C-alpha cells in the first residue's frame, strides 16, 4: 500500500511581502490520514487551497495521483475532493440537489451520480434530510453535506479544511469516525487547530508555523517516542535532589514543588523498580509514580515557542 497519491514539492505562495506558504514539501500515500496542525495564520488553509486547485501557487509542484495539477488541472481535479473551511453549499438547494450537482460537476453520469448520492447519504447519515433545504439545516448537518460532496465521486485524495470546526462533541465524534473510515482506501489531508482531533484521526502529523513545515512524523513514531521518558514522582519525605539524580538510569531531575519531582530517564532504562525499592528502603514516603507521556501538545507548544525565540 505504498502508492503515492499526492506529492507536493517546494510549494510557495506569497501575499505581497508575506510568505504565507514557504517551500512546503510532503507526500501522501494511500491509506494515510495526514493532519496539518498549526496556529491560526500558519498557512494551513492556503496550502490546502493550493492543493485543491482553488488558489494558484507562486512556485512549486503538485502531483495528484500522477497528474500535475498545474499543467492538467481538469484531469487532476477529477480524483480530488475538497471541503473548504466554509462548506461550499447553496442554501437555496436541497441536500439531494446539491449532492447531485456536485457529482455531475465531477464528471459522473446521470445514473452514476444518482447511485453515488444514495450511497454517500447512507454513509454520512443524510438520508433523513435529503429533501430539506441546506439553509435550514444545522451546522453539523451542513458540515456533513460538505464532507459528502467532497467524497461522493470516490476521489483518491480528499482535502478537508477544519472538518469539525463548529461542531459539538457528539457531531465531531461522528465526523471523525467517518473520516477514519474514508481514510482506509484513499488519502486524506486535513487541517485542524485541535490537537486531540489530530491525535484521534490522523496517521501522520505535520506542524506548520509561519508558512513553514516545522515538524512531520507518523503519529505512531510520536507514540513510540512518547514511551515514558519522564516519570512523575510524589514523595512525602523527599531526599536531597542529588540523591535522586544518582539513581540508576536517571538523567535529570526537576523539582515541581509540594514533594513532586519529574525524573527524566533514558528511553531504554526502566528505573521504576529501582526507584520504588530505594524509596521504601530509605523511607521517602512514595505516594505517586506516574509515567508522563510527551503529548503532541507539548511538542506543538515547544516547537512554536522554539520558533518564536529564534526570531
Amino acid at each position, binding site marked *: 500500500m505504498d502508492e503515492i497519491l499526492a506529492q507536493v514539492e517546494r510549494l510557495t505562495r506569497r501575499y505581497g511581502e508575506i510568505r504565507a506558504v514557504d517551500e512546503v514539501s510532503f507526500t501522501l500515500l494511500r491509506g494515510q490520514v495526514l493532519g496539518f496542525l498549526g496556529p491560526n495564520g500558519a498557512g494551513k488553509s492556503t496550502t490546502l487551497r493550493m492543493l485543491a486547485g*482553488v488558489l*494558484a501557487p507562486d512556485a512549486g509542484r503538485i502531483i495528484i495521483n500522477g497528474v500535475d495539477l498545474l499543467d492538467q488541472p481538469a484531469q487532476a*481535479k477529477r480524483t480530488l475532493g475538497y471541503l*473548504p473551511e*466554509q462548506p*461550499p453549499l447553496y442554501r437555496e438547494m436541497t441536500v439531494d440537489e446539491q449532492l447531485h*450537482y456536485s457529482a455531475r*460537476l465531477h464528471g459522473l453520469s446521470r445514473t452514476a451520480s444518482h447511485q453515488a448520492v444514495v450511497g454517500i447519504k447512507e454513509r454520512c447519515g443524510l438520508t433523513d434530510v435529503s429533501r430539506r433545504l441546506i439553509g435550514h439545516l444545522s451546522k453539523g448537518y451542513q458540515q456533513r453535506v460538505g464532507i459528502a460532496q467532497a467524497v461522493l465521486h470516490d476521489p483518491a485524495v480528499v482535502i478537508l479544511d477544519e472538518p469539525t470546526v463548529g461542531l459539538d462533541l457528539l457531531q465531531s465524534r461522528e465526523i471523525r469516525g467517518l473520516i477514519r473510515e474514508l481514510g482506509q482506501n484513499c488519502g486524506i489531508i486535513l487541517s485542524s487547530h485541535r490537537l486531540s482531533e489530530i491525535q484521534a484521526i490522523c496517521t501522520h502529523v505535520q506542524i506548520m508555523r509561519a508558512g513553514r513545515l516545522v515538524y512531520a512524523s507518523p503519529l505512531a513514531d510520536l507514540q513510540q517516542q512518547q514511551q515514558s521518558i519522564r516519570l512523575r514522582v510524589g514523595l512525602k519525605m523527599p531526599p536531597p535532589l542529588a540523591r535522586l539524580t544518582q539513581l540508576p538510569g536517571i538523567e535529570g531531575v526537576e523539582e515541581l514543588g509540594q514533594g513532586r519531582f519529574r525524573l527524566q530517564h533514558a528511553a531504554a532504562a526502566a528505573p521504576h523498580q529501582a526507584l520504588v525499592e530505594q524509596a521504601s528502603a530509605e523511607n521517602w514516603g512514595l505516594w505517586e509514580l506516574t509515567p508522563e507521556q510527551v503529548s503532541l501538545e507539548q511538542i506543538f507548544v515547544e516547537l512554536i515557542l522554539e520558533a518564536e525565540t529564534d526570531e
Partner: protein
Amino acid sequence: MIIVIAARELRSLFLSPLAWTLLAMVQGLLAWIFLLLVDDYWQLQGRLVSLDNAPGVTDLVAAPLFQVAVWVLLLLVPLLTMRLFSEERRTRTLDLLLSAPVTMVEIVLGKYLGILVFLLITVALIALMPLSLALGATLDIGKLLTGMLGLSLLTAAASAAGVYLSTLTTQPAVAAIATMGFLLALWMIDAASTAQGTADDLFGYVSLRRHYNAFLLGLFDSTDFVYYLLFSAVFLGLAIRRLDDLRLRD
C-alpha cells in the same frame, strides 16, 4: 459540463422569488404598454385605411412595444447577473466550481447560458403579446422575428457585460449598479448627436441603441449582428481572465 452549470443556475433563479418577481414586473408593465398601443392603433385605424402604403399593426404595436421592452430589460439584466459571481465569491461556493474538474471557460459559459435561457424565456413571453394579434390581424412575421432577434441579442450582450462586472466585486448590489450604469451609458452614448465626423461614427458604433433600431425596422444587418456577438465575446473573455486572475490573487 456547461449544461450542468447552466441548469443549476436556472434552477436557482426559479427557486428564488427574485426571478418570479422580475418576470411578473416585466409582464405587468409591458402588458399595460401593449394595451395602450393597441388602443392607439384602434383609434388610428380609420384614418390608416385611406393611406397608401400605410404602416401596419406590426409597425404601430410590435415595434414600439419592443422599444419599451428594451428599457425594461436593461433594468432587469443587472438584477439577474449581479449575483452570478459576486454572491458565489461572498458565500465561498465558488470553491466548489474551482476545485471541480471544470475549466474557467466552462464556468463562465455555463453561468452565462443559464441567464441567457431565462432571458430568452422573458423575450418569448414578451413576443407572445404582439403575436396574439395574429388572431384578428395580419402580422408582418418577418419584422416581428427580427425584432425578437434584436431584443435577444441585446439582452445577450447586456448580460455578458453583467457577468463580467459581477466578477469584479463581492457585493451583488455594487455589481448591479455598475452594470446598470454601464448599459444605460452605452444605450445613450449616441445621443451626443452634435458630435461630428469620426466621434459621431465611433459613438454611433458603440451605442447599443443604434444597432438595435435597425432590427425593429425589419433589417437584418450582419454588422449589427456581429456587433452584439463581439460585445458578448469580449465581456465573457474578460470575465474568464478575471477569474483566472482571482486564483492568483486572493
